């Protein structure tokens, strides 16, 4: 790992860059996992009094506006060359965190559907700006060699705390937790962005070093220019598939107390701790495999585990109930989620140069994560409210997962353009 060399050389500037990036991304992802994905449902249903179909529509707006904003802003950053301007990215990140902090503080006081929708619209724009901005800092702060492990650290921190601290999914709980950390982020980013420090200027030049700037899947061709593999669109499709099967299954699990009460919403700390530790183990496995192999090697595992876990849930719904759902199912779920989250945090930067990173990250995250989440959320809620039985839902999800797994296996075997 490059980190150890920088530690040996006492390269405090670079080490600070690691800390800044991990802290920012882990907090941001924790915010997304808890406040955005779970807190908004509670806000809409309990405090505003909306029905689930209306909340789902609101969440769809959130996904679409975020997606559109991220794409537009990523393109703008590419055209203006902002991807190579670290200080500007810091200022943008400061603005995003400031807006999100104010929105977070205001959320528990919303009592009308209009207020809820306005909140979503403003938050979506901020999140959309945040995606290319924060992902774009990877090229400035994290050496190429360490991106897998850094992604693993971000993933494990976000999921561990989300699993362990989120014993009750209430907007007030999430708000009080986040308002401890977010104001610190606002102050910290504000100081870094608007006060001139020599070490910030050194950080701003790091993307020009060979160790940092150009991702490992970018190759320099005979014309002397950087080229990307043909696999970017395929990667976006694969990531879309993963997000799709994950959300489609999980959004039904959320509304099935038999499974949630023994795992993600268990009243005791034990299952939360177990899931949290599993996320950490899964993330570091993914970090090591991403670094030592390639993103291609991880995809069959992710799809395979999702297919397996959805089949397990299907079998569990078909067979007579025992004393409670086994923890093996959430364990495998946590492993699969950690694996693909690590890929998501590392791969877009590794497919980019400092100039293109903002647009590529926006393309990747917006087209795969947000679009898939939008489609699968809408489908899952529509199916459930339409009266689809639990076993039918899981049989569809398991079938889709199995089909995707077989496709990925075939792709891996026949070595398409994504292969090395």
């Amino acid at each position, binding site marked *: 790992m490059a980190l150890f060399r920088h530690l040996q050389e006492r390269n405090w500037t670079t080490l600070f860059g690691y800390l800044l990036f991990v802290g920012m991304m882990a907090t941001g992802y924790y915010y997304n996992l808890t406040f955005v994905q779970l807190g908004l449902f509670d806000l809409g249903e309990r405090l505003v009094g909306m029905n689930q179909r209306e909340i789902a529509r609101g969440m769809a707006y959130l996904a679409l506006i975020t997606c559109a904003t991220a794409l537009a802003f990523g393109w703008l950053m590419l055209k203006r060359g902002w991807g190579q301007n670290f200080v500007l990215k810091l200022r943008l990140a400061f603005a995003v965190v400031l807006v999100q902090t104010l929105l977070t503080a205001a959320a528990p006081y919303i009592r009308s559907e209009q207020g809820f929708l306005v909140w979503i619209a403003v938050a979506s724009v901020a999140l959309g700006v945040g995606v290319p901005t924060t992902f774009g800092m990877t090229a400035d702060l994290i050496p190429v060699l360490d991106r897998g492990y850094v992604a693993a650290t971000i993933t494990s921190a976000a999921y561990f705390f989300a699993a362990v601290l989120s014993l009750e999914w209430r907007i007030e709980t999430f708000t009080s937790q986040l308002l401890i950390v977010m104001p610190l982020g606002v102050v910290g980013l504000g100081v870094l962005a608007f006060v001139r420090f020599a070490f910030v200027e050194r950080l701003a030049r790091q993307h020009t070093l060979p160790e940092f700037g150009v991702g490992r899947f970018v190759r320099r*061709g005979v014309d002397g220019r950087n080229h990307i593999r043909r696999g970017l669109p395929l990667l976006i499709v694969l990531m879309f598939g993963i997000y799709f099967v994950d959300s489609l299954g999980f959004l039904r699990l959320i509304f099935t107390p038999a499974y949630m009460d023994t795992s993600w919403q268990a009243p005791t700390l034990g299952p939360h701790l177990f899931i949290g530790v599993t996320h950490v183990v899964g993330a570091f496995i993914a970090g090591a495999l991403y670094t030592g192999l390639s993103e291609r090697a991880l995809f069959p595992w992710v799809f395979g585990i999702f297919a397996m876990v959805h089949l397990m849930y299907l079998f569990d719904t078909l067979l007579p109930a025992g*004393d409670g759902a*086994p923890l093996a199912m959430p364990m495998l779920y946590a*492993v699969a989620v950690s694996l693909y989250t690590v890929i998501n945090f590392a791969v877009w930067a590794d497919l980019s140069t400092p100039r293109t990173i903002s647009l590529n990250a926006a393309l990747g995250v917006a087209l795969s994560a947000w679009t898939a989440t939008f489609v699968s959320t809408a489908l899952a809620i529509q199916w459930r409210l339409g009266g689809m039985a639990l076993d039918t839902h899981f049989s569809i999800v398991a079938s889709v997962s199995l089909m995707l797994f077989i496709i990925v296996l075939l792709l891996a075997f026949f070595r398409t353009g994504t292969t090395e």
Partner: protein
Amino acid sequence: MRQGLFITTILFAVLLLAACSPEDGRYSGTLVAGGTHEFGSGETLEGGLLVTDGRVILGAGSLVTGPVYIMGGEVSVEGEIRADLSIIGGEVALEPQAKISGDLDIAGGKLTRSPEGVVTGEVSRGSGSGVQTPLFPEWTIIPTPEGPALIQRLITFAVNTLLLAVAAAFAARFLPRPVARVARAVTEAPVVTGALGLLALITIPSLLVLMAFTVVLIPAVLLGALLLGAVVLYGWVSIGSEIGYRLARWRGWSIHPAASAFVGMLLFTLLVNGSGFIPVVGTVVSVLAASVGLGAVLLTRFGMRPFSPATQTAPGPQAETGERQGPI
């Protein structure tokens, strides 16, 4: 060539699965995972029966044509089983009218047997005692009351260690290159091999349990478990051989690689199994050793190909020609 082999294998697997369709009840079976199920006089269960939980009453005059495996729950046998009865967990009662045409194997659980109950085959105590699977609560296997004596454990330990050392010597003698490739993967990329091995150790047992639920795939489960064990063993043997090789080089011994592998494996097994006497540490060491070895075997395709981590072979952008897309 490889693609042809792949397609042939897939076709073969599909045909094999198709052949396992439950035609005429030859390959069918019944899984009971909960609830109460009673089979009365004249009722016939075609194929095997697997009970993981719940209550099953095979009443007088009922018939099960295949083998019966009991892993949990309560089972009362008053009818006939025309194959073996294996008790791994749960509570089983063999009533006076019970008739078992095959063997009776008791690896765990609790058996109450009426003297009038007939067992045509042999009655044996299996070795599946003491195994607990807390992640699958319904599959908890009740340990046998008596554990082996210390002397018996020591003998088992010594025999196992010796057998592994002999296996390492044979592997170093007859498969020197594959073993060396696996060992090189372990030494050059222990983190990557360990990560892949751990992932396989987490997922493969879950997959085997899932397959067992289909009943029809139980033979494949047994095969898969054996294969997993063999792969872990292969990894261990390779690590032991490498330890022996390095030890011989360090000490300046000019001995045959098979002999150094024997010594290395002896040391490695003593170390790993010896750490088992320290709580927690033993488990961690065993899991790590198994993971690293398993991962190395998988990454080298069973020792057929050398493995180099991607970041060693491609550290950042490289000059390269070839079929690439437009500039970015």
